[in-house]
């Protein structure tokens, strides 16, 4: 009876087996309680429900994605610092973390950083900025967008719950079988991992479909594909990658689930299972995933470098084709993730060459960015700082990537910290820095005030310094032969490098703290940082042509586009910001709770599957599909914003715009910036 009600759940699932686990779980519980208390204190429940949880506005959904990503970033950065501390003291010494716990740490760190920090971050930024850039009022399927957010959040919540109830997987973020099969990993950890990933991968597939259709069908009149901002181009490319690369992950995790729950033999050691099928499918997802992560940053840098150099992007067409080539090539190289797993030498050679080919379009991009800066009026803003740091560091990471693309070299350093250094070198400058610069770049558009500039520079310094200190030494210890994921080591020569790496990790912790301080300071000083006119950076693309924060309908009238960087052209011709003669009613999708219901239902579904609580599995699945079916009978999915209301909003903003001082380029980072910058002569 007890098993029927609670499945495998019992008191032993509570995290009282170690002080660190208890502490971490308490932080999660106290944090959740603090958030609930805060919302109650500001009497924000109604607003939270109406303005956020049930909203289908792409801008708000985008912001919620980024919030999820920040919470998860904080957890995974702390985990990284704990691991670095352990390795710093673990010479001939078990340190303060036992092996099993250390394995959980590197598994959650990787899983969170890829699936619950990076993916929500980039999807959030696209959700916010991409429809604005192409002159659309929302994505093609707003309710589905909300469901995608729900699925990703449910996965993130499962990750957080796993900290409090039960233990997480020790199988690494890739979850290779047969280790993750029931015979070697009998606990619930792998199940948590499977369902968190499965939910988020389904959500991401839906996002890919949504974005691709939006870009193909909802561009403003005149905006041909080759007039789209580069950021929108990368959105299209990663959407296509998500549509084709997410399903292999879903299939791989579900097959692993069938092995574990139904005793099947897809990847087991016995009765004909073949673990290589998992490895192939995982990396058939995993390699395109690398470009799903990196292309968005390329898109952001293409925007920010052009904007802050006050110059049209150099080689726009070549950048587009480079992006497309990278997207296509990303499907042809998955095998380089397992050169050492027994293929023929010729097969390895083919995949090695294909891998090296990717360096060509990437190199084209770096030259294009550099040439955009040549003779530009460069303003060293925070996003520009990230772009410069990225170009130097990413070339180093790319060079080590070409080294690893050589199967012979790969045999030497595979499974060492050299590899760890390489992919962190790609993903921190090539994803995180891009997203952080996007955060600084579009924050004033999203909230109507700039982020504090000085703290932005401190964050930049801590991240870049921390990254260099933490990962450059790992190249050396990796080349010296230190295996990745070591809980303890016995070579004295590694010690100084690991101490330096620890310093780097601590600096990254400072970056995290500075981000909190910056947000706090900026919210406090929001009056003096306000940019109501909406164009604080002398922007080039459509999102800067409207108020900050944008009205919910985005554009009072959908603009006609005649060129690349159309808004910037219009400013030069003094045709920007003209009041339209007529306003019309605008139809917008109305709020729906379907996304939130699906979030809760799929979270219950995943949790119940993990603990074998079968009635709750059925309940979760039933509510999930029931909500969607009920929604399909609802015909009242639109609401009208009357023309008079739009006229009032727009005229008020246009008045603010006319009254705002047009500041010079140099004053952009001072409080004189009200969102209107004079075009330098």
């Amino acid at each position, binding site marked *: 009876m007890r098993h029927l009600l609670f499945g495998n759940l019992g008191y032993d699932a509570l995290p009282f087996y170690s002080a660190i686990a208890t502490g971490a779980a308490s932080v999660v519980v106290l944090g959740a309680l603090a958030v609930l208390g805060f919302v109650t204190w500001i009497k924000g429940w109604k607003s939270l429900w109406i303005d956020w949880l049930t909203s289908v506005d792409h801008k708000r959904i985008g912001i919620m994605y980024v919030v999820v990503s920040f919470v998860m970033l904080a957890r995974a950065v702390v985990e990284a610092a704990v691991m670095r501390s352990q390795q710093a003291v673990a010479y001939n010494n078990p340190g303060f973390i036992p092996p099993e716990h250390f394995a959980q740490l590197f598994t959650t760190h990787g899983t969170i950083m890829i699936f619950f920090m990076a993916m929500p971050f980039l999807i959030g930024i696209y959700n916010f900025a991409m429809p604005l850039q192409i002159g659309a009022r929302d994505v*093609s*399927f707003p309710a589905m967008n909300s469901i995608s957010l729900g699925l990703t959040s449910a996965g993130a919540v499962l990750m957080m719950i796993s900290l409090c109830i039960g233990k997480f997987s020790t199988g690494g973020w890739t979850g290779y079988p047969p280790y993750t099969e029931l015979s070697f990993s009998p606990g619930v950890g792998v199940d948590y991992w499977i369902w968190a990933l499965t939910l988020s991968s389904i959500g991401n*597939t839906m996002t*890919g*479909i*949504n974005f*691709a*259709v939006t870009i*193909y*069908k909802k561009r403003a*009149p*005149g905006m*041909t594909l080759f007039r789209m901002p580069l950021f929108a181009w990368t959105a299209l490319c990663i959407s296509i990658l998500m*549509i*084709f690369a*997410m*399903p*292999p992950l879903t*299939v791989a995790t579900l*097959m692993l689930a*069938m*092995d574990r729950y*139904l*005793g*099947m*033999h*897809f990847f087991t050691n016995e*009765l*004909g*299972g*073949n673990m290589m*099928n998992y490895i192939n*499918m995982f990396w058939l997802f995993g390699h395109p995933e690398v470009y799903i992560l990196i292309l968005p940053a390329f898109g952001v840098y293409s925007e920010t470098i052009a904007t802050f150099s006050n110059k049209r992007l150099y080689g726009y067409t070549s950048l587009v084709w480079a992006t497309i080539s990278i997207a296509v090539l990303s499907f042809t190289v998955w095998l380089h993730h397992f050169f050492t797993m027994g293929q023929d030498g010729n097969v390895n050679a083919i995949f090695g060459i294909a891998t090296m080919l990717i360096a060509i379009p990437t190199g084209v991009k770096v030259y294009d960015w550099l040439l955009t800066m040549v003779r530009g009026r460069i303003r060293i803003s925070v996003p520009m700082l990230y772009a410069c740091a990225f170009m130097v560091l990413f070339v180093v990471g790319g060079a080590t990537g070409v080294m690893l693309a050589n199967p012979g070299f790969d045999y030497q350093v595979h499974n060492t910290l050299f590899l760890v250094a390489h992919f962190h070198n790609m993903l921190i400058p090539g994803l995180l820095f891009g997203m952080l610069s996007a955060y600084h770049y579009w924050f004033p558009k999203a909230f109507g005030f700039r982020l504090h500039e000085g703290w932005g520079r401190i964050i930049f310094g801590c991240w870049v310094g921390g990254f260099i200190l933490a990962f450059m030494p790992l190249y050396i210890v990796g080349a010296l032969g230190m295996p990745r994921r070591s809980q303890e080591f016995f070579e004295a020569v590694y010690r100084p490098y690991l101490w330096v790496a620890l310093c780097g990790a601590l600096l990254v912790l400072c970056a995290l703290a500075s981000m909190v301080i910056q947000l706090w300071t900026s919210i406090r000083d929001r009056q003096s940082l306000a940019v109501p006119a909406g164009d604080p950076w002398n922007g080039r693309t*459509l999102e800067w042509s409207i108020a900050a924060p944008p009205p919910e309908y985005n554009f009072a*009238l*959908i*603009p*006609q*586009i*005649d*060129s690349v960087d*159309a*808004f*910037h*052209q*219009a*400013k*030069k*011709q003094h*045709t*920007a910001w*003209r009041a*339209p*003669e*007529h306003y*019309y009613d605008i*139809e917008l999708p109305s709020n729906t709770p379907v996304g939130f219901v699906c979030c809760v239902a799929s979270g219950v579904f995943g949790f119940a599957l993990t603990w074998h609580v079968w009635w709750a599995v059925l309940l979760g699945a039933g509510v999930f599909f029931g909500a969607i079916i009920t929604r*399909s*009978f609802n*015909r009242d999915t639109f609401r009208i914003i009357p023309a008079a209301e739009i006229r009032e909003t727009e005229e008020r903003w246009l008045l603010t715009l006319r009254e705002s001082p047009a500041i010079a380029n140099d004053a952009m980072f001072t409080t004189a910036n009200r969102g209107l910058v004079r075009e330098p002569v």
Partner: protein
Amino acid sequence: MAQAIHGKGPSHIGIRMSNAAPESRKEAARSEAEEALFGFWVFLMSDLIIFSMLFATYATMGHSLAGGPGPHELFDLGSAAWETVALLLSSFTCGLATLAMRYDRSTGKTLFWFGVTLLLGLTFLSLELHDFFTMASKGGVPSRSGWLSASWALIGTHGLHVTSGCIWMLIMFAQVAKFGLDPLVQTRFMRLALFWHFLDIVWIGIFSIVYLLGVLS
């Protein structure tokens, strides 16, 4: 607008405020329907990747019998052939249903042909269930070998798709009862039809690769 798209717009470049009235509700509904249909095509492409992974897994596990029963013992080609007939026929009636909907604009005819499609779908499913029971009774359960896991997963995923297609059809009947055969219901029927034809194509793959190659080779 057509002019602007081809780059021969007015003399000034940049953005212009068009003062033309935005598209009417009817036009908006048409472009929404088009977007939904296009989105569904994209979804089908994504779904096809799922099936291609399952086919690839099946292909690599062809010899992973682990001493258990193989295709010769387990598959009944006769039954699989009848399943194929039922599903192909249902695709045909599904086509008749969309024709009735689009050109005859007759609710009765449309529902009749979709009803026949549903019955044929259910026939397919019952034959398939019967096959599954027969396989299991001969010891061909999915946990017996890698090959059996792969075949159950491939055939079963297709079966689950057909099941959800049948449920979808039932929901659509309820929608016709509530809203009549209005444009929104029609576009949903169109997507259902796409889904149904897609499953037919996947089944042809399963029939050829799993059943025919399995029994005849």
